[in-house]
């Protein structure tokens, strides 16, 4: 999947992955995609819940070698 912007949140503890995701999303246009990499396990549930409440779409999320990868479409 091609993203318009990439955010490296690896090594960051809660709440920073979401704080940074929100800032990055604020700079995107409607329909653009943000790719996020994080290592904080709590980010999985929190990011999907946050995306839902903000009207964004979590298009894909995978886990590889302890790195959580998310693709969020701005809504």
């Amino acid at each position, binding site marked *: 999947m091609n993203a318009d912007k990439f955010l490296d949140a690896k090594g960051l*503890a*809660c*709440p*920073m992955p*979401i*704080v940074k995701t*929100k800032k990055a999303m604020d700079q995107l246009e409607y329909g653009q995609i943000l790719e996020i990499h994080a290592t904080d*396990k*709590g980010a999985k*549930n*929190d990011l999907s*819940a*946050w995306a839902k*409440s903000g009207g964004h779409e979590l298009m894909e999320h995978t886990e590889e070698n302890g790195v959580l990868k998310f693709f969020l479409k701005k809504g």
Partner: protein
Amino acid sequence: MTVKPMTVKEVTKKVISKDQLFILDVRNHDAFGDWKIEGENFEYLNIPYFDLLDGVEDIVDKLPLNKQVLVVCAKEGSSVMVAEMLSETGLSVHYLKGGMKAWSEYLEPVKIGDLKGGGSLYQFVRIGKGCLSYMIESQGEAIIVDAARMTEHYETFANENNILIKHVADTHLHADHISGGRKLAEKVGGTYYIPPKDAEEVVFDFAELQEGKEILVGGTKVIVQPLYTPGHTIGSTSLLIDDKYLLTGDILFVESIGRPDLAGKAEDWVADLRESLYDRYKKLDGGLMVLPAHFSKVSELGENGKVTASLKELYERNEGLNLESDKFRTLVTDNLPPQPNSYQEIRQTNMGKLKPDEEEQREMEIGPNRCAVHN
């Protein structure tokens, strides 16, 4: 205004003394709905931290001015952020030091009583998860029963009181939490006991916790007498101590009874559970103090936080001990609460087959224990 930490020990004191506290839980709704800090006089507001990133103005009105406010999250970071935002509006609030992770891992030692043969019995209350473990101490030696993963709590307590841990026993193969039994026994050079029928797939050496094989603590003064009481698991074994205390493991609780389905064999084990509860325990002295391996509700916490009742009292008021055969079967096989988080992986870990690291063990144990047939 100020932001101050509140420790899990301080919160525990508030739970036990039934104090008031207002908890602003900033975890996501699912996590809060699944598991939270329970207190009889606690009030709650659950707003995820990620909905407060633009400001806390909207929730200031919902917080009481006449009560202590405690902001809670999973590991502390988000609660500090929200507490600081609230403090900037002029409020004075606390955050939970270490978050729900610390809450899950805290054990409060409570003295239950003295032993006739000399020595004492302590209950270690894992307040966040509802797990109970025990230290039976006599003449400077001790046995730990149903040890939690955080074995340092027992070691510190033993060191402070000049006690040597010689034996460690699990009443059954646990499915709701990772046993600290084997690790603790290895660290102190003691013997680890587990019922052989629960240990058929266990991949390490152990001593058999079996009826007829008594364990002596502190010379010959205190006898720990195993009593085979299957039903929660096929090996479940109770411990009779000093003719006064009955450690029931996950077979009998103060307000409920054990569930037989966590090893996938509810139908097979119903009859065993019935026989243990309605026949084997019934033959024992009603004056025995029942000391279970779990509690479900904070209302079960008595004086100083202890969880106990006499066997006679439980035969009078515990629903699970007062049912006809068919109603009993329905209670223990139908409409059971959800199974504990990661219970299959936890069983595998307790057999020694899986070796998760500490962080993974922590994740596996998140949430309430759910070993009883009632929620």
